C-alpha cells in the first residue's frame, strides 16, 4: 500500500483549489481588517489635524505670558490662568461688541434669503437675456480677493453714502455668490417633472419656488444657514473697511486690538483667550447640534 497514493486519493485538484481559495479568503479578511485599522488611524490623524489647532489655542489661552511666548506645541497645562479670559473680555470690551456681532449676523441671515433664493431660482429654471453675462460678472466678483477690490469698492460705497451704515455692511452678503451658486445647484438637481406638473396646474413662479422647491432643498438651506452664520460671525476685513464708528464694529475687529497690531510682541495668551470667546458660539453650536450639522453637511442631498 502506498501512502502517497492514499493521500493523493484524498487531495484531488478541487480540494487543493478550495484550500487555496480558503487561504485567500483568510488573507483577504486579514487584509480588509488591516486596511480598516489603517483607515481608522488615517481618519483619526485627519481628525486630530483639525482638532489639534483648537485644542492648542485653548491651551495657549490658559498659559501665563512667558510660557505662551514659547509657542510650545504641547497642549497640557499645569497651572491654567483663567484671568486671561477676564482680561481679554474687559480689554476687548466684548460685552459691547458681541451685541453688534449678533445684530450683523442676524440681519444677514434674516435678509439674505430674500435675494439669494429668487436669484438662484431664476438662474436655475429660467432663460432670459444677458443670463450668461450676468452670471459671468457675478462669478468674476467671487474670484477676486477682497484686498484687490478694496479701493474701488470703498469708493463706490462711499459715493452711495453706504460707508458706516448697517445697510452698507450687509449689502454684499445679501447678494452672496456662494449662496446663489449653492441654491442654484440644488434647484437644478430637482426633477423637472415636479416643476412641469406644478406649471400645468398653473402655479406661479413664486408658488413653485416657495412652496415646492425650497421645502425640497431643506438640507441645503440648513447647510447654507450654518456656513453663512460662521462666515458672518467671523467677518473681519469687510467690517473693518466699511465701518468707521465703534457703534457698528463687531467682535473680530475689537479682538484685533488684543494683538496691538503693528508693534511690540503681542500677549498671545490674551489674544487666544479673546479668540476662544469669539469662537464660543460656533463651538457650542457644534457641540449641541452636532448631528444636525453633520447630516446637513454630509447628507446634503435634496429630497426627491
Amino acid at each position, binding site marked *: 500500500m502506498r501512502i502517497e497514493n492514499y493521500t493523493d486519493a484524498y487531495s484531488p485538484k478541487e480540494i487543493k483549489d478550495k484550500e487555496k481559495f480558503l487561504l485567500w479568503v483568510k488573507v483577504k479578511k486579514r487584509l480588509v481588517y488591516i486596511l480598516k485599522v489603517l483607515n481608522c488611524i488615517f481618519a483619526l490623524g485627519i481628525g486630530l489635524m483639525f482638532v489639534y489647532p483648537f485644542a492648542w489655542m485653548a491651551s495657549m489661552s490658559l498659559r501665563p505670558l*512667558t*510660557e*505662551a*511666548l*514659547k*509657542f510650545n506645541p504641547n497642549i497640557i497645562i499645569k497651572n491654567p490662568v483663567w484671568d486671561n479670559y477676564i482680561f481679554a473680555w474687559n*480689554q*476687548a*470690551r466684548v460685552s459691547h461688541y458681541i451685541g453688534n456681532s449678533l445684530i450683523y449676523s442676524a440681519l444677514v441671515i434674516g435678509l439674505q434669503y430674500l435675494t439669494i433664493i429668487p436669484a438662484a431660482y431664476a438662474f436655475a429654471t429660467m432663460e432670459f*437675456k*444677458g443670463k*450668461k*453675462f450676468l452670471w*459671468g*460678472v457675478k462669478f468674476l466678483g467671487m474670484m477676486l480677493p477682497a484686498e484687490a477690490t*478694496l*479701493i*474701488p469698492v*470703498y*469708493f463706490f460705497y*462711499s*459715493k452711495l453714502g453706504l*460707508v458706516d451704515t448697517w445697510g452698507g455692511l450687509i449689502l454684499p452678503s445679501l447678494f452672496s455668490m456662494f449662496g446663489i451658486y449653492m441654491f442654484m445647484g440644488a434647484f437644478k438637481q430637482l426633477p423637472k417633472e415636479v416643476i412641469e406638473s406644478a406649471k400645468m396646474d398653473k402655479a406661479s413662479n413664486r408658488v413653485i419656488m416657495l412652496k415646492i422647491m425650497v421645502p425640497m432643498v431643506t438640507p441645503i438651506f440648513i447647510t447654507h444657514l450654518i456656513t453663512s452664520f460662521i462666515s458672518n460671525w467671523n467677518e473681519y*476685513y469687510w467690517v*473693518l*473697511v466699511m465701518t*468707521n*464708528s*465703534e457703534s457698528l*464694529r463687531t467682535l473680530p*475687529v*475689537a*479682538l*484685533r*486690538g*488684543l494683538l*496691538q*497690531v*503693528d*508693534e*511690540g*510682541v503681542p500677549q*498671545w495668551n490674551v489674544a487666544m483667550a479673546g479668540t476662544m470667546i469669539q469662537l464660543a458660539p460656533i463651538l457650542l453650536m457644534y457641540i449641541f447640534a452636532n448631528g444636525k450639522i453633520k447630516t446637513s453637511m454630509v447628507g446634503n442631498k435634496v429630497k426627491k
Partner: protein
Amino acid sequence: MKKSKRFGVMLVVVLAIVMALGACTGPADNVVDGELYPEGTNWEMITSKPSEPVNITMWIPNSATSTMGVGVQTLADLFNQEQATNNPGKNITVTVEYQGKSSTLNEKLQASILSGNNPVISAIGVSSVPLFASKTIDLRRVFTYEELQAQNQGLLQYSLYNGAFVLNPYFPSASNIIVANKTLMSSKGVTLPTAADIIKQPKGDDWTWDKFIAAAKKVTDTEKGIYGFASNSLDPIGMMYQQGGSLYNKTVTELAFTKDDKFAKGLEFWRSLVTENCMLNPNSRSNHGTIIVSEFYEQKVGMIYTTSSNIVNLSKQAKENNYELEVLPFPKKTDYFTNQGGSGIVILNNKPQKEIDAAAEFLRWLNKPSNIAKMCKASGYLPLHPAAMNEPELVEIYKETPLLKTAAELMIFGVKSPQGKAKVACDSEINKYCKYIWSEPNMSIEEIVKKVTERAQYTIEANQ
C-alpha cells in the same frame, strides 16, 4: 448674445482706462528738502475761531481696544470736554475712528481721498509720507518755528518731504535699539557701556561692532542654551548708517549702497553673529521673533534687538525676576544710528477750511507737553516733546520704567531718512533678500549683494 459680449468688452476697456488714469499721478518732482524754515518765507498760521460747532473726524491705526486707541480716545474726550466748557456753542468736537493695521488705514485713506469722504486729520505710518504728501497741509502753518525746534529733532526723520513739513510724528518709537540683561552680562564678566556715556561721547569707541561681538561671544553658552544676542531680523538701513553710508539717495530714486563695499561688510557682520555662535539663526525655528522674547524673560539671552514698544513688558518681567536691564543704541562701526518707527499725524487739505482750522487747533492741543505725556503714559510711545518728560505723568512712568526715557534720549542718533515712493517696497525687498545670509549659508556675500542689488534696482524703477 453678441451685444452682451460687446458690452462686456466695452466695460473691461472703460475699467482699464479708469485704472490707468488713476495710476497716473504725475512725475515726482525732484525738489530736495530744504531747511525747516527757508529764509524769506512767511507762513500764514492757521487759527480756528469757529462761530458755530465744528465736528471733525480723526483716523488712527489699531483698534479702540488697543493701548494706542485707548490713549487717543482719552485725549479726544478731554479735548471735547474742554471745548464744550470753554467755547459753548462754538466748540470743536473730535471723533476718533480706528482702522486696524497701518496698511489697511493707508489703503482706506487713499480710497476715501478719491471719494472725498476722508477724515480731515489722520495718523499714517512714518514711511507713508510720500503717498499722502500732496494731499496734506504744511504743518509750518500749524506750529511756529520755535515749537518745531522744541520737538525732539531725532524724531523728525520722516517729517519733511519735498520741501514741506508733512508729518507730526506723534506716535513714535525707536525701532532698532538693544535691551541688555545687565545682570546676566555682568555674571559672565562683561561690562557694558551705559547709554548716558554713549550719548555724552558719541565719538568714543566703547560700543563698536567688534566689542559687541566680543561681548556676545563671552556670554554665549550653547550647552545651557544661553546666547549673547538674539534678533529676528537684520537691519540693512542701520548697518549702512552705522558705517557712515546709506541705502538710497535722498529721494529714493537711486541705490547708494552699490558705490562701495559697506553693504557687503554689513552683511558679513550680521552673518558672523550666527557663524561665530553669538546668536541663534533666526531661520532655525518658526516663531523665532516671539520665542526669543520669552527666552530673554528667562535670562537665556544677554542682549535683544527690539523696539522701544517692548520696553514696558521687558522691564516688568525684569522687575518680577530680579534682574537689571540697560538700553543701548545698536553698536557702531563709525556712527551710531537710531531708527524711528511708529506713526504720525497729517492734516488733509481737501476738506472745508473750518474743518482744517479745527484740526490744526486739535493738533496744537495734542502737542502740548502735558497731553504728549498722557499719550506716552497710556501707550508707551516716546515723547515727541522733551518737555513732556518733566510732566508728572511721565516722571512717574520713568521712575518705574527709566529705560523708556533712555530710549527717547537715544533718538539723538536719528538722521533724516531718505523719502520717496519706492522706499517702503524697496526696504521690504532688501530686508527679504538680505536674509539669505542666514537661510542660504553656502551663498557667498558677493552673490547675495548681487541678488539684493538686482531686486532693489527693479523695485526702485517700478515705483517711480
